[in-house]
């Protein structure tokens, strides 16, 4: 701090340097600094600082010293006029500022959220240099199956060995394993990682050392939360935890969990990747099976595009034709962009546009009301011109008024956003906060500038151009040019509002469609939970115990929850009787399931039979396929045909009707059901009667079979809903945004209608005296607005149709675009607009004509 106090402000010194003649500058600055220090020592740093700045003013040449106070005076005059204007027309100012504030608040929240989403994973040091390797398959006719986030285990080691651009690579794979300490036993999210994972992602060690974390294969690293869960306040380092029933692991490190805004799903335990070898005999340098997510960090200065070009054709020694290409995805894109494009980023773009729209609508309000009132201000402009105001001075005045309004609105907007934030957080499912950060201030300042410029530009340009003589003679009629602009702007506002309304209806229509669609399996009352090894050993006993309960329909084991499967065969890995060429052909999705799968999942057989507990042979060499697979293979009667998947020969014993394993964005993939394969999930379907009792029964039974087992289940229906979380959240935000757009548009319309009614007070009075009814006055005043909003419909419909059709294209299964949606949106806009305008018109019509004729 002392360093700062010793020297005068650099800006002030620079300014002084500009103002003092260069020949004597050095000496003068030295004198001033000497005095400054003297003053600082005697009177304190602040006084000295203030004194130094004061000198800048004193050095100013005289003419400048004269100008500044006058500019200030003029500015104060403008400020006074602006405030008087606001005060005189309270209603219109209220509309202006409220509209602007609401628009800005919406904009602020939307951009705050979008910024949060875009910043995902950005906190990792080197985030810009980290990429995920993924696979793109050449699978004809199956665009949905082309991308897979998992790679073979050989990819990581090969990339680090053969490509100098790759500084480090880490393979990861997730499981749910039971971790126990004495009688504490929980199923925990476990991640098997290479040791390079720690440096790649800069994992922070709270205890233990990064370098020696995975010295032995039985070493494990846990998170702080997990340490607390199992050990409380005790030191976990060097303690042991039992992994499943397999081995005792020694804790060599405690790490901090990643923050919430990362694509990584939470993990509790990190285990050396090499454990796969002794545990399951897996080959860790293999090209055949894709199972692992591989991250790489590029060396400094290496280009990702260049590397991507090199590795795309990286051939797998075991595959003769190039059906797989390795691709790279930036770490920072993983949250927002799905493989192959699409994802959250689409919605972020949509909302960026919606935010801008709302702000535009609010600015249009200001512009409209300003032009409408222009005839009133014209006299002021004329007078100012007569006494010598230049055009640029007047333009500055009007722009300044607009800036003042938008500044006031910005303050209100921040407050409104702050008040609304808890609701917004609920909608987005995020923990955003407004802290008046530098970012927020810059953002609001930007909006203030933009809104001020947009809103003030018309009066600043047009109003200042009038000739004072015309105005002062009382000819204000000539200012009607703004009318067309005004009409155009109202049409624009309502087009946007109608567009958004249609958008909301389409999104909700699709969500409803998804919700009510028959997925081909019974999603209701089904729970799933991770299967651990010990439970798997005694699964038949568990099943028998549950079978007696009348609240349970069935119990089965699968390789993944029935809402998604990441397992695919890969292109050209399957063969069937009558297959035309050997090594090409479609990729099939794979779902491992046991004999009870048909009843538990509620699937329907189309032909043949399902795996049966009575046929022990079914365990090994049979498969069931779905109808899509039968079509993909071109087989009319597939049952009984020979089939080979990877190295496994089998007979097709049955065909199930198609059902949706993944989100409705994707078409139903060809699917192979393998008996008892890779099972790590339990699915239990209940009848729905006395659900709580049934769940308690399941939990008790589990403890009976596997002592200490804690049931942590999830409902399949909830998991399905999560698949569409982005859509649901976007729908909610869009609904609020639309409401706001309509509300702000109507505010503007209200102001405009009130203004017109007031301007035509005398005309209305005369009409009324001559016998016009209130109804005819209302018609007179609202007719033109009716036409504008109607016109807005014509603009909005084709645009909305185009946008909605494009959005729906991202779904393989989609609801139809119904004409009634367009009609409803249009009618609603018309109705709201007419109510707004009609209210004002009615008031004007009802006014006592005697009083209005005495007007002016």
């Amino acid at each position, binding site marked *: 701090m002392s360093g700062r106090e010793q*020297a005068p402000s650099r800006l002030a010194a620079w300014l*002084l340097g500009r103002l*003092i*003649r260069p*020949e*004597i500058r*050095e*000496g*003068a*600055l*030295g*004198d*001033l*600094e*000497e*005095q400054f*220090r003297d003053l600082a020592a005697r009177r304190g740093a602040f006084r000295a600082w203030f004194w130094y700045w*004061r*000198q*800048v*003013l*004193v*050095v100013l*040449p005289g003419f400048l010293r004269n100008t500044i106070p006058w500019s200030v005076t003029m500015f104060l005059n403008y400020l006074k006029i602006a405030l008087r204007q606001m005060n005189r027309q309270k209603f219109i100012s209220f509309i202006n500022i409220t509209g602007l504030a609401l628009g800005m608040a919406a904009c602020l929240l939307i951009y705050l959220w979008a910024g949060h989403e875009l910043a995902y994973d950005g906190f990792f040091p080197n985030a810009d240099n980290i990429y995920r390797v993924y696979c793109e398959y050449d699978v004809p006719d199956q665009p949905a199956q082309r991308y897979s986030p998992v790679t073979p285990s050989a990819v990581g080691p090969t990339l680090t060995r053969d490509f100098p651009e790759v500084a480090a690579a880490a393979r990861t794979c997730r499981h749910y394993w039971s971790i126990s300490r004495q009688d504490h036993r929980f199923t925990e999210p476990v991640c098997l990682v290479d040791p390079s994972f720690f440096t790649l992602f800069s994992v922070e060690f709270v205890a233990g050392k990064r370098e020696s974390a995975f010295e032995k294969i039985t070493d494990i690293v846990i998170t702080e939360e997990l340490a607390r869960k199992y050990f409380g306040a005790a030191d976990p380092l060097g303690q042991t935890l039992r992994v499943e029933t397999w081995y005792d692991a020694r804790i060599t490190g405690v790490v901090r969990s990643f923050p919430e805004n990362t694509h990584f799903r939470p993990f509790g335990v990190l285990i050396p990747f090499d454990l796969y070898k002794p545990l399951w005999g897996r080959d860790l340098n293999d090209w055949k099976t894709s199972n692992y997510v591989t991250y790489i960090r590029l060396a400094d200065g290496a280009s990702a595009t260049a590397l991507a070009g090199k590795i795309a054709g990286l051939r797998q020694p075991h595959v003769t034709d190039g059906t797989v290409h390795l691709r790279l995805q930036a770490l920072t894109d993983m949250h927002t962009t799905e493989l192959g494009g699409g994802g959250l980023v689409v919605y972020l773009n949509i909302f960026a546009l919606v935010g801008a729209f709302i702000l535009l609508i609010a600015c249009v309000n200001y512009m409209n009301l300003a032009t409408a009132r222009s005839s009133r201000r014209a006299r002021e402009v004329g007078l100012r011109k007569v006494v010598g105001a230049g055009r640029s001075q007047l333009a500055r005045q009007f722009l300044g008024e607009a800036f003042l309004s938008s500044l006031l609105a910005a303050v209100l907007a921040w407050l409104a956003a702050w008040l609304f934030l808890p609701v917004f957080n609920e909608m987005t499912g995020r923990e955003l906060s407004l802290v008046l950060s530098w970012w927020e201030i810059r953002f609001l300042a930007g909006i203030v500038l933009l809104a001020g410029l947009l809103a003030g530009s018309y009066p600043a340009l047009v109003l200042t151009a009038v000739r004072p003589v015309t105005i002062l003679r009382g000819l204000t009629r000539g200012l009607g040019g703004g009318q067309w602009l005004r009409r155009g702007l109202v049409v624009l506002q309502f087009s946007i509002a109608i567009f958004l309304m249609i958008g909301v209806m389409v999104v909700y229509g699709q969500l409803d469609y998804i919700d009510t669609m028959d997925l081909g399996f019974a999603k209701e009352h089904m729970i799933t939970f991770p299967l651990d090894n010990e439970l798997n050993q005694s699964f038949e006993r568990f099943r028998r115990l549950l079978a007696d309960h009348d609240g349970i329909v069935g119990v089965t084991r699968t390789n993944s929850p029935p809402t998604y499967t990441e397992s695919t065969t890969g292109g050209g890995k399957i063969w069937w009787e009558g297959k035309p060429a050997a090594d090409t052909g479609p990729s099939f999705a794979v779902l491992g399931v046991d004999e009870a799968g048909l009843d538990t999942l509620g699937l329907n057989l189309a032909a043949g039979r399902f795996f049966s507990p009575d046929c022990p042979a079914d365990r090994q060499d049979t498969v069931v396929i779905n109808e899509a697979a039968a079509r993909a293979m071109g087989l009319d009667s597939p049952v009984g045909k020979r089939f080979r998947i990877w190295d496994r020969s089998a007979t097709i014993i049955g065909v199930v009707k198609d059902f949706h394993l993944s989100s409705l964005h994707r078409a139903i993939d060809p699917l192979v059901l393998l008996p008892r394969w890779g099972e790590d999930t339990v699915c239990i379907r209940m009848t729905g009667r006395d659900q709580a009792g049934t769940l308690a029964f399941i939990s008790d039974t589990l403890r009976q079979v596997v002592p200490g087992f804690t049931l942590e289940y999830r409902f399949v229906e909830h998991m399905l809903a999560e698949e569409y979380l982005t859509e649901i959240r976007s729908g909610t935000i869009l609904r609020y945004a639309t409401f706001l757009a309509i509300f702000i548009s109507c505010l503007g319309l209200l102001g405009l209608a009130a203004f017109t009614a007031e301007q035509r007070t005398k005309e209305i009075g005369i009409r009324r005296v001559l016998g016009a009814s209130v109804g005819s006055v209302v018609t007179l005043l609202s007719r033109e607005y009716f036409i504008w909003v109607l016109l807005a419909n014509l603009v909005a419909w084709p645009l909305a149709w185009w946008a909605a059709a494009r959005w729906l294209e991202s779904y393989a299964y989609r609801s139809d675009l119904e004409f009634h949606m367009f009609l409803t949106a249009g009618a609603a806009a018309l109705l709201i607009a007419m109510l707004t305008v009609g209210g004002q018109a009615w008031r004007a019509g009802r006014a006592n004509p005697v009083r209005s004729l005495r007007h002016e």
Partner: protein
Amino acid sequence: MKLLSRIEEVLLLAIWRLQDEAYGVPIREEVIRATSQHWHLGAIYGPLGRLYKNGYVFTVEGEPTPERGGRSKVFYRLTAKGREALRELYRVNQELWAGISVVELEEEP
């Protein structure tokens, strides 16, 4: 010879009086002492610059000192033209005041 403005005159006199010690800070103090009016330090550089430009004063650099942010003191000295100007001013002042009694000025009319 063109006559100097009052502040220029005061500054020139202050510089002459201070001789070897004539740099910004004491010049200002001398001006304040002589005129009994407050002068901002910043306010002397405008006229001082004019005096320099018109060749009434020249500058001599001293040693840099830390309390001045490493800058040298710059001392001002009168040039021949400066001395000439002061002589001229003295003559004009004498002429202007000749025969005027301050006592009479103090009397109420």
